[in-house]
């Protein structure tokens, strides 16, 4: 079981309040992702849940038990760190066994669990190596192994993939998602990468300056961002924002349109502009359009085979049914 509730939790470092009063519930078995730009307080929030930092006020409950003053070791949570934080002087076997040894578990049971975890994570052949002899991905798996053997109430991941190269990151992303499906244990995952958030989460918590901007499923955030910040943060490439007379036509201070919701044409469309940089990904092409008179640059996503040249003047048609409208404060207008 692992239902985690934060009740008016705050955190200050000296006179600086990094987390103003914050309420949040993460349901048992949920995969929650905290996402936001660096310095938004997402790691601090995770460390508060872990117990590695003390809350300044408010309450943290794990399965309706007050855990606010409980030391990290007694909260029944496991954490995977960005740097993996493996014990360099211990073999992989001893690393994975460490939490069980600390729990004074029976040695035979420790061996059984370590070997079970190693086989799940493809680490069986590496059990007697030291962390220094492993690749980044293997180290990450050891860190995960160390966290699963204890069968914790919830897993906490602090940017676990940011030290891996791009290809490995995609693979590990899948592995962690599969692990979650299999274990059905609560997971809280911190990242600054919105792609990780979108692909893995049941529930995304978007944070900015310690404040929760929006909580919702990936598609909820994509379809109905509550404000301009969430709209700009979720989705890649980022949403185009247009202000001024064009926005006024839609009775809004700002309108937002995603690059994938603009059609391009050589001849017709209400907007027009000049093609700047084109990014060809094969499956898609991203055009950066200038001189539209609407915004400095408008990004457009077109099919992989669409070919315009640098300097061509082209026409754009936004799909009005998926356009987002925001007021002067940046809040969504329904």
């Amino acid at each position, binding site marked *: 079981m692992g239902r985690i509730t934060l009740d008016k939790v705050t955190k200050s470092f000296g006179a600086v309040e990094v987390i103003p009063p914050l309420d949040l519930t993460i349901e048992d078995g949920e995969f929650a992702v905290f996402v936001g730009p660096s310095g938004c307080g997402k790691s601090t929030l995770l460390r508060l849940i872990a117990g590695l930092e003390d809350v300044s006020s408010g309450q943290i409950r794990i399965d309706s038990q007050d855990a606010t003053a409980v030391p*990290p070791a007694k909260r029944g949570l496991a954490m995977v760190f960005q740097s993996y*934080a493996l014990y360099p*002087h211990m073999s992989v076997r001893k690393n994975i066994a*460490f939490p069980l040894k600390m729990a004074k578990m029976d040695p035979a049971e420790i061996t059984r669990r370590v070997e079970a975890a190693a086989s799940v994570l493809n680490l069986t052949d590496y059990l007697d190596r030291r962390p220094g002899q492993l690749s980044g991905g293997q180290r990450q798996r050891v860190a995960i192994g160390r966290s699963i053997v204890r069968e914790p109430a919830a897993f906490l991941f602090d940017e676990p993939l940011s030290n891996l190269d791009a290809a490995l990151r995609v693979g590990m992303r899948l592995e962690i998602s599969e692990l979650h499906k299999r274990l059905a244990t609560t997971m809280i995952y911190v990242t600054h990468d919105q792609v990780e958030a979108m692909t893995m989460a049941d529930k995304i918590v978007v944070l900015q300056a310690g404040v929760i901007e929006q909580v919702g499923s990936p598609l909820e955030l994509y379809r109905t961002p509550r404000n301009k910040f969430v709209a700009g943060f979720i989705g890649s490439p980022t949403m185009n924002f247009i202000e001024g007379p064009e926005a006024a036509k839609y009775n809004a201070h700002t309108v937002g349109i995603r690059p994938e919701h603009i059609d391009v044409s050589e001849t017709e469309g209400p907007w027009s502009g000049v093609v700047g940089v084109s990014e060809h990904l094969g499956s898609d092409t991203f055009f950066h359009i200038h001189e539209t008179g609407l915004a400095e640059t408008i990004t457009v996503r077109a099919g992989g085979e669409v070919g315009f040249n640098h300097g061509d003047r082209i026409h754009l048609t936004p799909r009005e049914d998926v356009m987002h409208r925001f007021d002067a404060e940046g809040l969504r207008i329904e």
Partner: protein
Amino acid sequence: MARSVTTRRKTINTALAWAIGLLIFFPILWTILTSFKTEGQAISDPPVFLFFDWTLENYAIVQERSNYARFLWNSIIIAGGSTLLGVIIAVPAAWSMAFVPSKRTKDILLWMLSTKMLPAVGVLYPIYLIFIRMGLLDTRVGLVIVLMLINLPIIVWMLYTYFREIPGEILEAARMDGATLKEEILYVLTPMAVPGIASTLLLNFILAWNEAFWTLNLTAAKAGPLTAFIASYSSPEGLFYAKLSAASTMAIAPILILGWFSQKQLVRGLTFGAVK
């Protein structure tokens, strides 16, 4: 062209390094050489360097006159005991300063170091009186305590520097894995800091071995270590350089050998943190 300049510079640097090294080592070398001379050759003018009648006579006389083994044993107990005790006390102190620093941590470190700036003789009188009252005068226990206290600031400083290099996340991981503070220090921090702790032990063992002020002032016949053994040869009946040198050589030989075998460890310890 550039290449030859570099080579010439290298040669000069090497020669310079050797010259400085020999200059620093010369007093020890001279002591060792003198210990093999007769008393006459030892004070001859001009001094003889290598071409004299090598003799072991001085060592025989020194061994006959005083019990080297007992002094050696005292040295080992005092240097070893004070170093071990110091490390046991310093590990938790350095842990707290390195991993849970407060606003005053830097001040405390400096204050600790400042105790080393006080001339030792300034506290000789009170400590002597305390020792008399507690019956610690001329005991090994007393010297272990005093030398431990004297070297404690250095031990804490060295360990603090080492611990600072250990990523805090690993200790946090241990905490998340259910380790108590004791288990965290015992199973995670200490094994990771072994190289640092080893060179700290070594350096402080050497410092304690060579400490003369306190060992001479607080001991008489029973607990005197090798420093007292040397000092006993510089006394009333006039100076006998050859015998004094023989005694000195016997006193520094164990630590010199220890230092020789562990010089890698020692250099690493002394330059740690200087280069990343």
